[in-house]
């Protein structure tokens, strides 16, 4: 069983290498054809002469032909060097290593909130199709999709920070005057917990809640609608009728029989939603000044800073692959029919 899973994971990872390679090449070329010359951008000032710019270009290797540049870049990636950011002056790997946990923490929390809301809502809607509950859930989902995150984020800030005063100042991961946790994993909640600093933990959690809710609202719709549809299909299937004919208790039918089967397609959607959230949460990060990896990449893009953008795209592609493999493995564990093959 374990060996089979390991084989599967290995096969999937190996088979994703060509796709990752394609992503690297395409991003590389795209960055080069986009307007904007980093040498001009980073020259000492608008008055910098042509000679200075040329010298900078040479130093950055931009005067070489594109294929040579690509080869150099690929060689660097192979040795684990993703280049240096011109804006921060740091190695890209270091920057991302610091910012990725912030994004991941936000995304995981948002996903947890979204799932814990959307699955029960979807189940409720499916158990009473056409009822007021069903319509209410549908409306909530529609709202979540229609309202862009920068609007809903601002609304939440307005309501919970400005009017009610329940939420803390919506900037950054923790109050600027509070102390940050010891650097262990980079996830504040985990680090505070490890340091047994519960006051800091709750401060970080409260800081996290608003942006996480904003993101959760946005992905509520696909998860809840999928849960509802798949739950409806399962509730109408023969084995549910058979379970009812055998007098099983109602909650057992809904949870152990229907929901477990209905969650299989939801799991697939969750994987896709997670990857999308991680890459697309730049708006939320901007609204809440969240020092995440997406806003880092956006800043770099605006500055024609090649290395961070390329590294970001590569990272997203890699995370997408990993998430898909993880979903695949989970699927095999939940559904015995998959592992039979």
């Amino acid at each position, binding site marked *: 069983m374990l060996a089979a899973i390991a084989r599967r994971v290995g096969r999937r990872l190996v088979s994703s290498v060509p796709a990752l390679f394609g992503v690297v090449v395409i991003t590389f070329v795209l960055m080069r054809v986009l307007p904007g010359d980093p040498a001009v951008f980073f020259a000492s000032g608008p008055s910098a002469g042509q000679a200075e710019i040329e010298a900078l270009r040479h130093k950055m290797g931009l005067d070489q032909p594109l294929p040579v540049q690509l080869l150099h870049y690929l060689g660097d990636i192979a040795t684990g060097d993703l280049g240096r950011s011109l804006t921060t002056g740091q190695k890209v790997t270091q920057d991302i290593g610091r910012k990725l946990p912030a994004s991941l923490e936000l995304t995981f929390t948002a996903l947890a909130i979204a799932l814990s809301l959307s699955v029960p809502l979807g189940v409720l809607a499916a158990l009473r199709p056409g009822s007021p509950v069903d319509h209410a859930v549908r409306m909530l989902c529609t709202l979540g999709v229609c309202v862009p995150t920068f609007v809903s984020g601002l609304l939440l800030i307005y309501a919970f920070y400005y009017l009610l005063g329940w939420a803390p100042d919506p900037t950054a991961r923790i109050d600027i005057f509070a102390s940050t946790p010891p650097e262990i994993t980079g996830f504040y909640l985990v680090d505070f917990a490890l340091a047994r600093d519960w006051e800091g933990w709750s401060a970080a959690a409260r800081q996290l809640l608003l942006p996480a809710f904003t993101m959760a609202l946005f992905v509520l719709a696909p998860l809840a609608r999928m849960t509802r549809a798949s739950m409806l299909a399962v509730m109408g299937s023969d084995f549910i009728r058979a379970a009812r*004919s*055998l*007098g*099983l208790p109602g909650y057992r039918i809904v949870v152990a029989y229907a929901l477990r089967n209905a969650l299989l397609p939801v799991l697939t959607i969750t994987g896709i939603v997670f990857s999308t959230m991680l890459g697309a949460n730049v708006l939320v990060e901007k609204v809440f000044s969240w020092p995440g990896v997406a806003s880092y990449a956006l800043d770099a893009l605006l500055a024609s800073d090649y290395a961070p953008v390329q590294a970001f795209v590569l990272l997203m592609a890699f995370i997408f692959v990993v998430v898909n493999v993880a979903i695949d493995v989970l699927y095999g564990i939940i559904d*015995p*029919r998959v592992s039979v093959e």
Partner: protein
Amino acid sequence: MTAPLLQVEDLHVSFSTRQGVVQALRGVSFSLGAGQTLGIVGESGSGKSVTSLAVMRLLDRAGRITQGRVLFRGQDVTRLGRSDLRELRGAAMSMIFQNPRAALNPIRTVEQQIVDVLRAHRSMSVRQARAEALDLLRAVLIHDPESRLAAYPAELSGGMCQRVMIAMAMACKPALLIADEPTTGLDVTTQKAVMDLLAGLTAERGMAMILITHDLGLAARYCADIAVMQNGEIVERGPVAALFQSPRHDYTRMLVAASPRRDSTLADLAPGLPRPQAGARNDGVRVPGAGPLLELTHVRKSFPGPVHAVDDVSFVLPQGGALGLVGESGSGKTTLSRLICRLADVDGGEIIFQGQSISDMPARDFHRAPQRKLIQIVFQDPHDSLNPRFSAFDCIAHPLRRLEGMRDGAALEARVREAAGRAGLPEGLLERFPHQLSGGQKARVGIARAIAPRPKLLVLDEPTAALDVQVQAVILQLLDRLRREDDIGLLFVSHDLNVVRMLCDDLVVLKQGRIVEAGASAAVFANPQADYTRALLDAIPHFEPACHAERESVAL
């Protein structure tokens, strides 16, 4: 005498559909004493399943009991609340279903599911429940019960799934068991084993049983009483022998006539139909045509795995002849039919059609072969084999457009109408889509599509398995007429020996890809040589009311 176990009084059920309210049951009344067996027979849509679901209160959201009572041990089931119903279901009355694999939860093991049932009704520890689950599996005679406990439904055969379902239905010793077409889709031999088990267990435990089936033979063999349903009403009810020997209602008479007996011929089944055109061939002795139409020599085919799907099969089908391929599922008959239609490639041997080998050409390229239009197939499921977005006309026109390159116009229309006419499909139905047609009409569309390019060989893969008996009778007669009038050779794939006997001159019995017996149908039927053939023949629930009555009287 005590009050009956189950008493249904004037039961009305209606379904609200998009087309409005449909009355499914119109005043059904019957009663059943403890330990009695009742068969409910009728065509699809007659309301037999709705009756059983209404008794269990398992109707889906759209269905509603509008009138009448269902008294179980004197208690009105139609008025029970949720929790009372839950206690009743599984413990006092339970049900087994048509498609056993779909009735089991695909992601829970057999043991978990049986334990769920036991613990839903009896306070027992998981350990005790597990021990009892094993006993139950032994009681339903599953091979190697210890290792089946950990199996998932997908790992079991259909027959085994039905045994597990029976084990679950009997787990809490209910007084009434409703079996809704429990063996449809199973092989005849499996059907016999499952039904014998069911009958044995219910008799042994003094349970009452309601058997819902469209197969009169099955009902006659396993039930003491029969109720005949039509259009949501019980039109006739009585003891098996009396009901079938002297049916009073017209509909019962028609059903009885349409059910094949040991000695019935095609003409007996649907007496109302016009006889095939009189001719020399009509007396059952068929003159072989000019030379063989199809010849198979040492054909082999294997899929990844230890066994051969088709192993060294040879036979000859004469021009305009009819040959039956008989066997259980897994015997290789469907694979063989796919090989002959050249939808799959042979691994060895040769298939010769009209004197020319057609097995050399890869299956992927065969659509270009001139023989493609001469070999046509009618599929098992009349519904799934039609494109839901094609009207009946387009379905029938499709092979003409693809194989003969015909363009829209009068010629195409004439050919489609001709094929539809020959298949007995009314012209008014040509514009309809598959979901607007009945099962029998869809079967006719499938046949019309197959005969449209004027083939010489028609491969029929259990074309009547999904049809009611009276529709089956009509379709069989139609096939027989096509063969006689158009000189089309028929290769009839079926597990129903009785149907094969009536339609085919010769038959080939397959087991695990090998031929175990071959010969003239009548001879094989009268005097089977192989044990396997005998088992197959023995398993057919022959509709012999007289024999049944005798057996009953001996037993009493």
